[in-house]
């Protein structure tokens, strides 16, 4: 029948003609917007700048590369050790304090790296209380005794590790908690002791999560400026600033950043590769509750000690000294506008965190819906912002925003004779956008990983019941990954609260945050006065950090955790 041709047109477009689904278009659009600042940075590579590069190569470039690599290596190894071992201990065993450590191990996350660096320097440096006490007590002078130099590459590795290991811990623990105990038991029946089983199976299965955590840590390490600058360690970031500020060459600085992005691309590739090779989601559908093995005697106390050490060094000790200093100075630091700072910080962090969560959801879902390679690569690219120092991102944001502003201005002044000036740059919009470019990776990774765990059959089941994309997202996916959405939001919240360099450059007039106040005082070497705003950052971060911990302990299928 000739009419049959018309009856089928309602089904689908002709085969072979690629249809751009609305999701695909939306995600591509978002990816492009987020890519603009990164591309702005990368495009600098094409500006010839041979003379400066020769100078850099002859003098300091080797230092930047070696130090950056050593720093990443050191921080990588230590965060892995602390993160994975503590995650394993609190998930598998019961020992004094094990329940408290589940959340306490996340606490160091609330302390910005530069603050812990300032604090430990204040305590451990030559002129700090500890060394003064040693000299006075033993009646000796400097040089008569050995004391580790805190402001060194090793010191920077320690400081960064202490505040960054929670990323590894957080993701690894979530992976352990989700593991089917069966596979660990199989391994036992095949002749592996509990330790070997943990190593060969537990860790192997948690590997994607561990690597995600590790890559976050390494990217943060690469982007860190405050700590390495204060410790006088010449890395890529300090190099970028020197080249820019000292040599007055922002192009070469951008080129250094582009070179640094190359590192990140390698990192991302490794992570992608490891995730791709084999699947890690469990073939098993049964979950037996992990029954924590009680430890007794010395092994119990050893476990307690191992878990207590990072919390003590990464949180309690710095907090103690910050409080000491804050006690001496709060009278002059805390005034009405101090509360304005807290308010500003929280508003910025909340807005960014929520927007990041929503956009990640859209991108991850779009990626799931389309499955196209372009989109997959695009969303990866968006994640790169995490490794770029905030200052570089700020410039990458300023340039396009100013360009848009200029064109709007030209348009209005020629058409209506009105000068619009700057509409976007110099507003909170620019600042929040820069935060998003920088921290999108954290949120996107979390949401994406969670969505991947929702089986495609769920979508199909819902579709078979007549639900559309949006309805499925709202009624199936969002409720299923609620925990991860919360995690994503909280992680970004804490990150924004601590963010400094981009805020410094992009914020509007008369707008300050806790991080800025801390930095300005600490930078003037007024550590004691910086303690109050620093303490406020820590205290404001603790709430989301504790919430985070609660959400992962509940995320386990079939667990009867509290609440």
């Amino acid at each position, binding site marked *: 029948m000739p009419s049959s041709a018309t009856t089928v047109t309602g089904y689908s477009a002709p085969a072979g003609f690629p249809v751009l689904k609305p999701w695909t278009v939306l995600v591509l659009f978002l990816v492009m917007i987020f890519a603009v600042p990164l591309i702005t940075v990368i495009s600098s590579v094409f500006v010839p700048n041979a003379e400066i590069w020769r100078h850099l190569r002859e003098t300091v470039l080797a230092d930047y590369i070696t130090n950056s690599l050593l720093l990443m290596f050191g921080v990588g190894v230590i965060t892995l050790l602390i993160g994975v071992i503590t995650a394993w201990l609190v998930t598998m065993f019961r020992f004094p304090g094990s329940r408290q450590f589940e959340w306490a191990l996340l606490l160091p996350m609330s302390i910005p790296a530069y603050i812990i660096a300032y604090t430990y320097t204040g305590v451990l440096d030559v002129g700090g209380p500890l060394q003064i006490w040693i000299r006075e007590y033993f009646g000796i002078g400097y040089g008569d005794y050995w004391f580790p130099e805190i402001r060194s590459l090793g010191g920077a590795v320690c400081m960064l590790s202490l505040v960054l290991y929670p990323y590894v811990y957080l993701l690894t623990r979530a992976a352990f908690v989700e593991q089917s105990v069966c596979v660990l038991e199989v*391994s036992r029946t095949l002749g592996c002791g509990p330790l070997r089983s943990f190593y060969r199976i537990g860790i192997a299965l948690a590997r994607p999560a561990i690597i995600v955590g590790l890559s976050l840590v390494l990217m943060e390490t690469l982007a860190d400026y405050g700590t390495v600058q204060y410790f006088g360690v010449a890395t890529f970031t300090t190099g970028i600033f020197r080249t820019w500020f000292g040599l007055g060459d922002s192009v070469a600085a951008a080129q250094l950043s582009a070179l640094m992005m190359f590192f990140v691309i390698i990192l991302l590739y490794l992570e992608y590769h490891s995730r791709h090779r084999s699947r890690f989601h469990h073939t098993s559908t049964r979950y037996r509750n992990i029954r924590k093995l009680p430890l007794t005697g010395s092994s119990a106390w050893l476990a307690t000690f191992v878990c207590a050490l990072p919390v003590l060094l990464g949180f309690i000790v710095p907090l103690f000294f910050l409080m000491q200093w804050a006690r001496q100075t709060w009278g002059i630091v805390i005034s009405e506008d101090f509360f304005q700072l807290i308010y500003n910080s929280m508003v910025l962090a909340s807005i960014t965190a929520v927007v990041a969560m929503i956009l990640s959801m859209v991108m991850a879902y779009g990626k799931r819906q389309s499955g196209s390679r372009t989109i997959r690569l695009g969303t990866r690219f968006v994640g790169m912002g995490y490794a770029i120092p905030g200052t570089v991102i700020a410039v990458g944001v300023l340039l396009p925003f100013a360009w848009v502003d200029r064109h709007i201005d030209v348009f209005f002044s020629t058409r209506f004779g009105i000068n619009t000036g700057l509409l976007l740059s110099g507003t909170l919009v620019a600042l929040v956008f820069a935060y998003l470019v920088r921290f999108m990776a954290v949120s996107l990774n979390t949401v994406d990983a969670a969505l991947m765990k929702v089986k495609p059959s769920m979508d199909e089941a819902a579709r078979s019941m007549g639900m559309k994309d949006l309805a499925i997202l709202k009624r199936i996916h969002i409720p299923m990954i609620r925990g991860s959405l919360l995690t994503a939001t909280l992680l970004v919240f804490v990150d924004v609260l601590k963010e400094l360099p981009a805020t410094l450059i992009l914020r509007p007039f008369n707008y300050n945050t806790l991080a800025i106040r801390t930095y300005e005082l600490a930078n003037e070497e007024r550590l004691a006065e910086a303690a109050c705003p620093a303490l406020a950052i820590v205290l404001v971060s603790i709430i989301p950090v504790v919430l985070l911990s609660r959400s992962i302990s509940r995320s386990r299928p079939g667990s009867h955790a509290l609440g």
Partner: protein
Amino acid sequence: MHSVKVEKVSIGFDGVPVVRDLSIAIDPGEIACLLGPSGTGKTTLLRLIAGFEKPDTGEIWINGVKCSDPAGMLPVEERGIGMVFQDFALFPHLSVEDNILFGLRNKPAAKQRGRLTQLCDLLRIRELLDKFPHQLSGGQQQRVAVARALAPGPRVMLLDEPFSNIDVELREELAEEVRATLKEEGVTAIIVSHNQLESFAVADRIGVIYNGRLLQWDSAFNLYHRPLDRYVADFVGQGVFMPARVVSATSVETELGIISGSGPHNFAEGEAVEVLIRPDDIIHDDDSDMTAVVEHKIFRGAQFLYTLVLKSGQRVLSLVPSHHNHPVNQPIGIRMEIDHLVVFPTGAGRGV
């Protein structure tokens, strides 16, 4: 010496007893099955034997070595057992080959290859070696899981509901295959199952477990025809309990006539009892003058399973070749043909 000996073992979780004072002994090379509905403690018993749980009382011996008692445990990995889990629990990050070789890592490479080849031939999984677990069907996963557990040459294999994740059509075939493999390897095996047909197909001896207790430890034939316990009679196979009165030391009288057993049933003459009537005990016979009305029928291919109502209102089941197709509500002629007299004291009357 028994291959596995469980002596008076009890265990409870959070004060709820799960296994109660249970003893069982399995001979070397024997394939034993623990049968019972879910939640009766079979899997817990298996985990006790494996060493994942510590008994509250009692002892567990494997090959003459005491492995568990309330005071101490031999670690799982030192017991020389192999285990197949209900969901197979293949390591998702390892290829089939690496899964199988997992337990052989301390052996010389040549030994590993040899054992791998042997198992591949035995279980016909050679073409799967390079694949990853998520690429396998249920039946393939199961065979790989069995191969992996067998690889180190365990003296005792423990299989937890190994067929429950398999398509029904495949189950019987796989069950026979697993049995053949286990026999070929000469390994003692304990299989947990809630499916009687499956356990009939695979086991030498079956232990029926209910409520944490071992009710009967016997061959499939005896469980069906000589159940020692009313619950076993009910759980294994189909049938009804029919009221009867004892007329002699070896026989009872029922509505359908006198039934005689081969041995004494140990009830006093005149006592009111109940006898177990299996569907195969009631034969359809158009010539018989004894009739019953068809209440319900299920077509089973070669046979019909009729539910019949006797004059007294008592229901019995009857398996009838399927060319005898009788409509519902019509009376048909029947007669009894009972080889095994199974008598229980009168209890609450239980139907099918």
